[in-house]
């Protein structure tokens, strides 16, 4: 058997570098503050404590560890919003403001925009 893919040998030999494997001298590190809710509105962000953390300038830091620690100090206030967590057979019975209905409407609109390039839409 042969495998002519040009990328596999490097990958199987662990020589392939993924972004997280790259090292740059004097690189600054960032850490992402993630929203703990599937759907929410950000009310306010307080990063004053984070900016006071050691080694931190703005939201980037000298080391990844410092960035992660500082990210924990960022206070974000959220307003939790309803979320779509599964696909329903029919959205007919749902009120028109429900996230599922809005979601489907958005998908349909996007499909319309791209219609000539796409196969016919599937029904949600």
């Amino acid at each position, binding site marked *: 058997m042969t495998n002519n893919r040009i990328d*596999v*040998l490097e*990958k*199987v*030999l*662990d020589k*392939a570098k*993924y972004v*997280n494997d790259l*090292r740059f001298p004097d690189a600054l590190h960032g850490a992402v503050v993630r929203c703990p809710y599937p759907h929410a509105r950000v009310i306010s962000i307080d990063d004053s404590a984070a900016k006071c953390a050691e080694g931190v300038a703005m939201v980037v830091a000298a080391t990844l560890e410092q960035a992660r620690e500082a990210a924990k100090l960022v206070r974000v206030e959220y307003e939790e919003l309803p979320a779509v967590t599964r696909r329903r057979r029919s959205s007919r019975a749902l009120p028109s403001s429900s996230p599922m209905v809005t979601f489907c409407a958005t998908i349909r609109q996007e499909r319309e925009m791209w219609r000539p390039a796409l196969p016919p839409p599937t029904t949600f």
Partner: protein
Amino acid sequence: MELVSVHMTVNGQPVELQVKPYARLLDVLREDLGLTGTKEGCGVGECGACTVLVDGENVNSCLVLASSMEGKSIQTVEGISADESLHPIQQAFLDHHALQCGFCTPGLVMSVKSLLDRNPNPTREEIKTAISGNLCRCTGYQQVIEAAEDAARVMRGEN
């Protein structure tokens, strides 16, 4: 912060390191020793991308504190192939198209290695169990299982 000193063997080489008490084995391998073949997928023991062998047992290096590795022998994916020649498991992964992005591959290779070291003639079910802690998001598992079977045959000296 007080650092902890650890002596361990990594891919046959003795190493002595000063590690933070909370550093994971994964951090030490990737950051201190530059062995980036071992990947961090989830950091919480779900994906197996960080699999290494500790005294022959496959473990998730993201769940192991480096400071607990005193006297242990660690084998990473970098340690299984000498001079860029392919280990039979790597060759089998290549032959069977058992990888796409390849991010899960080092972990899978190590899990298969740990199985074949213990059991040179595993059944398909045993292979499935051995890789059950390794998640692959692109290729799936069929080709990996076939690669493991093939590697086992080659390592037993058949064909």
